[in-house]
């Protein structure tokens, strides 16, 4: 495993650098402006020890001002326990708001910091077995930051997720490095690679998980992109039988005319 990770980092480091698109499993600090409305969706297959899960969220952001974005995530979830029938349906709805706290722009480069608040509602069914929803209200407060130049993109987000009832709060952190593989012009075909790290620390019981997530992104034109990411656990210190083997994401984003 470690040899593969080092090899991947080596390939990314040796690649000629150009500008790129938004990261795949990390939040982006680049909002699309008043006219840049778009939709994101992806299918995520999660392989766990005793269950397979397929999640299909549809993310719709809307810019109220160039600095302020609101949006909603409409997730559909399908769970297939080992030796059992699949159940699925609409999962927990999330609404979010992003506000640009800081921005410094230069020629073909930018550095931005956003505040991010997410509220998740327990809309998913908990009466089914297994449950589609968490049955919890969750409030996430965090920051998103990123530096983007024509040479590379560095992104990060971190935040605290507050849950109600007796569930534990958790700390979420993500980091991403983006490296384009093709020279860029506009509109253009772009092929971008990402190396991302996705961490989650649950406080009670103490469970730390960290995934390494290499990804590819193809942008065939000015209004659409396709992306895929493989998420492999490198830290997973829970002793339950609920360990994740891997996750695969395949998705698209398109900008509305």
């Amino acid at each position: 495993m470690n040899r593969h990770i080092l090899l991947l980092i080596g390939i990314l480091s040796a690649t000629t650098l150009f500008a790129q698109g938004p990261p795949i499993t990390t939040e982006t600090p680049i909002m699309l402006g008043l006219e840049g409305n778009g939709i994101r969706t992806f299918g995520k297959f999660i392989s766990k020890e005793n269950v397979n899960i397929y999640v299909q969220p549809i993310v719709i952001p809307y810019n109220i001002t160039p600095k302020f974005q609101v949006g909603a995530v409409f997730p559909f979830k399908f769970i297939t326990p080992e030796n059992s029938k699949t159940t699925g349906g609409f999962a927990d709805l999330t609404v979010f708001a992003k506000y640009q706290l800081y921005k410094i722009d230069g020629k073909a480069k930018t550095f931005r910091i956003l505040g991010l608040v997410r509220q998740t509602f327990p809309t998913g069914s908990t009466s089914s077995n297994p449950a589609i929803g968490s049955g919890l209200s969750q409030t996430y407060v965090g920051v998103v930051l990123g530096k983007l130049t024509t040479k590379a993109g560095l992104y990060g987000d971190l935040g605290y997720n507050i849950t109600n009832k007796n569930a534990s709060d958790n700390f979420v952190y993500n980091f991403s490095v983006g490296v384009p593989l093709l020279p860029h012009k506009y509109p253009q075909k772009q092929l971008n690679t990402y190396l991302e790290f996705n961490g989650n620390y649950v406080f009670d019981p103490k469970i730390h998980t960290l995934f390494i997530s290499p990804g590819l992104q193809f942008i065939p034109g000015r209004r659409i992109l396709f992306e895929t990411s493989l998420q492999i656990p490198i830290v997973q210190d829970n002793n339950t039988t609920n360990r994740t083997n891997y996750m695969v994401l395949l998705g698209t984003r398109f900008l509305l005319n």
Partner: protein
Amino acid sequence: MKTFNSRMGLIPLTLLLIVFSFLKTEANAIQIEKKDNSAYIKIWVDGMACPFCAYGLEKKIKKIEGAGDLFIEINEGFISFSVPINKVPTTETLQKIVKEAGFFARKIEFSKEAFKHEINE
């Protein structure tokens, strides 16, 4: 609550239809040639480092009456376009357009001649 197969089949199919409808509108070549009744505008845009993020600016520029010959160069950080000579927007209007797209207009040039673009690839 429905079974896996019935809903799983519908979601990807719907998404694919949406995606391909978008792909069909993508092929636009940019050609810039001198027109007698046109003025040319070049805006040096700070913060435009992400090609996928530049579409919002393109959309807003295209809403300027008569705007055409749009050209965006990410590496050099500028956007240029033509407008009818009697409908040239003010500097303030252009600055506002760029700001609303999430960027900053560092410098704006007006010309009666089409700009020559040297693209660094």
